[in-house]
């Protein structure tokens, strides 16, 4: 079973997903190719009610909202029983059961696993590393994050950035390192298929939307944070935790990003010309 597991790198953490359905497992290995890792920090036995590949790829993320969660000892219960399981971090084992209804939060469950392992295994970095609903592009060695809700143009930006290295068109990691913030790809992609595990120093963040012409404008920190915060994946985990502290961690992260990374609002038309505007404003 271990040979057929899907070993997956998400930022700094490595997990192994094991399924009874080997066909589904090989589907996931293909889906997440480019993110293979060797030494998992957690082995997750996934038990899922019969679900088609189409259903697996089709769910939406409700990023900021917290799902109902109960954690008692090693047991967790999400969505009022739709997702249940046990977690033993000492033994590096997790078992999870998804109902057919619960499978819609498969992606959020993976986000929770990411935050769980960050908090438990990488506590010093966990407050400085968040999943963000954004498109990431690396150009001339620097990373750019294009942040916005569904339909704001993340996949369009990715498509129009084929001259450069697209990191991801759906979920990226923004992380503070000693030298500054970096943007990193994740396995959680949208339409973009050429997805691999890469990162770049973060040069600027753009809050995006479609427009009738290309416009880049400066916005206040408050305006930026209120937009950016909506697209940060809440650091909910499978551990019992203080919700207030969690939300404050998010707020503090957003405030620190605003203090350390240039940010703008970008309205763009669907051609590559928006990159010239970006080059002008970031001084390339």
């Amino acid at each position, binding site marked *: 079973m271990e040979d057929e597991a899907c070993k997956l790198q998400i930022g700094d953490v490595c997990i192994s997903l094991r399924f009874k359905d080997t066909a589904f497992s090989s589907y996931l290995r293909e889906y997440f190719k480019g993110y293979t890792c060797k030494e998992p920090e957690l082995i997750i036995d996934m038990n899922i009610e019969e679900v088609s590949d189409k259903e697996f790829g089709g769910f939406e993320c409700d990023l900021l*909202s*917290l799902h109902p969660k109960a954690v008692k000892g090693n047991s967790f219960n999400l969505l009022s029983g739709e997702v249940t399981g046990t977690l033993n971090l000492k033994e590096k084992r997790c078992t999870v059961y998804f109902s057919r209804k619960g499978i819609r939060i498969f992606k959020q469950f993976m986000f929770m696993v990411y935050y769980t392992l960050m908090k438990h295994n990488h506590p010093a970095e966990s407050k400085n590393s968040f999943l963000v609903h954004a498109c990431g592009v690396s150009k001339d060695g620097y990373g750019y994050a294009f942040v916005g809700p569904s339909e704001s143009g993340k996949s369009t930006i990715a498509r129009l950035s084929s001259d450069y290295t697209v990191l991801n068109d759906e979920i990226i990691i923004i992380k503070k390192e000693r030298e500054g913030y970096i943007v990193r790809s994740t396995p959680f992609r949208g339409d973009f298929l050429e997805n691999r595990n890469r990162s770049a120093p973060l040069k600027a963040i753009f809050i995006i939307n479609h427009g009738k012409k290309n416009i880049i404008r400066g916005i206040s*920190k408050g305006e930026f944070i209120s937009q950016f915060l909506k697209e940060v994946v809440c650091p909910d985990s499978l551990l019992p935790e203080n*919700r*207030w502290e969690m*939300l404050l961690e998010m*707020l*503090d992260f957003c405030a620190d990003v605003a203090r350390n990374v240039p940010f703008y609002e970008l309205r763009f038309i669907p051609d590559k010309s928006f990159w010239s505007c970006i080059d002008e404003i970031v001084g390339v």
Partner: protein
Amino acid sequence: MISLDSCPRRSEDVVWRMIDDEVVILTADGREIHTLNKVGSIIWELADGTRSIIEIVRSIYERFDVDFEVAKVDVLEFVAQLADKNLLHILPAGERKGGKDGD
């Protein structure tokens, strides 16, 4: 009913941070984000349940170049808006929290 003697108090169901001159508020369910401008942020900071609205009006009047009557109307309106959103609770004049040194 909000009066000038009422004491607004920040809801305990939110987290917030002052970032430069602006307050960003996040509701506990993570569903709503509010950003307040400079004046709104000062009112928010003062709304700790120990001060009446008229005391907050005086504070705004002293800090900004604004007509006292205009400040009164603006503060009342702002407090009412935040109370409507359950971000502020309105304590009747007799129920103000003791001391002005914080919560």
